[in-house]
């Protein structure tokens, strides 16, 4: 806190402004976490999804297994969401 105060005096920013900027950085971090993991999941599901649709078109019984394979990478974006939530609220 003392260091923050010194910094605030140095650059002429108020404590509120620093806190707001820290919150902003956290929000940015959360956004990056969710956004990038979202892209990662998307890329991973792209290949699996198209192959899964092909497999289901050949044989409808594959649907359950195909759905399972397709949603496996979704865990990645959930991790991103978890990290984002922890950043914002913890």
């Amino acid at each position, binding site marked *: 806190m003392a260091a923050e105060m010194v910094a605030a005096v140095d650059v002429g920013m108020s404590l509120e402004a620093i806190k707001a900027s820290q919150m902003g950085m956290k929000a940015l971090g959360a956004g990056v976490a969710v956004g990038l993991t979202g892209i990662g999941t998307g890329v991973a599901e792209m290949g699996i999804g198209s192959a899964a649709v092909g497999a289901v078109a050949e044989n409808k019984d594959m649907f*359950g*297994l195909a759905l*399972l394979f397709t*949603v496996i990478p979704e*865990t990645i974006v959930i991790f991103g969401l978890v990290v984002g939530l922890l950043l914002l609220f913890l």
Partner: protein
Amino acid sequence: MLKPRQMSHLFITGSKNQMEPVIQELYRQNVFHIEEFVEQTMEGYEGVKIGTPLPGASEAASKLIRIRSIENTFGVKLEDVVPQKRVPVQQLRETIDTKLSAIVSEVEQIQAKKSKCEAAVKDLEQKINELKPFAAIPLPLEMYSGYQNIAVFTGRISKSPDLIVPNETYFSHAKEGNFIAVFAPAEHSGKVQLSLLQANFVAVPVPKGEGLPQDLLNLYTEQIAAHKKEVALIQEHLEAMKKEQIEFLAACEELMSADVDKAEAPLRFALTNEAFLAEGWVPTDRVDVLSDALVKVTGGKILVTVLPIDFEHDSVPVEYNNPSFVKPMQVLIDVFNRPRYTEIDPTLMVSIVFPIFFGLILGDVGYGFILLAMAFGLRKFFKGEEGQQLLAVLRNASISSIFFGLLYSEFLGFAIPGLKPVLFSRHLMAETAHGEAGGHGPMIPELMVMSIWIGILHITLGRILGMINHARQDHGEHRIKAVLANFGWLAVMWGILIAIWSIAALPLMPNLTGLPAVVSIVNLGGVVGAVLIVLGVLFIARDSVLEVVEIPTIISHVLSYARIVAVGLSSVAIAMVVNFIAIGMFIEPQLKNFSIFGIFIIIAGLVIFLLGHALNTALGILGGGLHSIRLHYVEFFTKFYKGGGKKYMPFGMKQRFTEN
């Protein structure tokens, strides 16, 4: 409940002349799953062949084809027809021939008339297309031909040509291309052709006919309209016929497909010169009823034997054996795979846990009621059994959503006034969306730990079931190894947990940091955890060394349950944002300073409110449903469940339109 219905392996033998009554009785009982006989050249199978269909098979089959073709014309399927009353089979058999052929000939006539009209329409449309370019030129069609000394050129062209010979030219500009008609002395036709070709001329033949093209066009258009009207009338007639005859046709189809099934049954039996042999499966509790009935119809001239089940070679058909409240979930288990006969049937567990997960994700009283209304409202539109089952699943899920909505104190993203969240709060702001104090603020760490706990318990249950399944299904040395490997996975997971507890104090989790220290930060708990992990890895490696690389999935699978909170919070966030935009930004400011113009803004706010919550409801079904079922399919089932059982399909039919 946790096991599929118990089956018995039945072997029916009798002399050939008893085959028909036996087939009739088996069909009536509707419990015998026929194991199809495959011709074999092995020793002991000499003289045993596949049977031949009973007389009347081809006749019934051809009738069935005719019935189905009429139903096709009407555009209906048997499943979609709602039975009003059932027709006695005897009465149907008497009338079927005459009535059916009358319907067939009538439908064929109508159909022929319809295709004739449609062909005429196509023909006229073709003629119109040919005539269209000529419509711009005010010359009757007969003027284009019949000259001795004049050559006529008609066609599309890119620009007006430079003709150096005497001529008479009609030129029309049009979007789809310019059109030209040139009349020139026959002796100059070569020159004319050359100049035309330079202007990218493409010849178009003059259509047959007489009179002005425009008049002909009008005539043809009128004719098309007349034909189309006739087609519409025919369609109406067909609709009326469909309404009148559909019940009869459905009954006929049911009767005939039963006849075909029965007549073709010998194709699935084994036959010798004198006897027939039928092998199949019957639910154990129905064996006595069936064999008594068979003995009765054959006058005792039949041998029904119950064979022992050989689990190595027999693939036993699987029929669910669940109480009625669990039944709807069977459709989602079938999507994954039907359980095998020796496996634990997870339907009961899924039907309890799935709604809970759904409620935890979409815990909102408002959305719960919307989904409940949908589950009842859509019943009319989903006629098939699967659709009804899915709606029942949605109904259970939405009830759970309402329940958890009360626990979370949420209504369309708002806090329910005066109701403190019993379960941890998910409200993202310490105040309600439109600025009033009284919200609760999110309790993210507690929610996260809660979801992790759910994951740990769910996965532990899965692993225990895995141990039971392996103990039941495997044999010999592999059995012990497989059971211990499952125990190993559990040991690693709990070992990691105990190790974490011994290092850090987490909310809602046991705190083991106070245990006596052994070395630096490692205390007694850490040692126990480490021992469990090592033991677990050893057990896993003993079964299959390659599995060891999968150990990190323990952490990812447990953390995957965080989606229960994460997806739920995202749904709450969307609801709150919608409320804030609609009410906080559009409606409230206008209500404070009321003006005429403000009414429009308030209406816009209401539209945003409705659209936003409609979107969030759709996302809620997807998020809540897909993620809950995924947690079962991926995280839960992979621990113990393989599936791949054969569906139990008894020989027979549930009569919907006919009665004996």
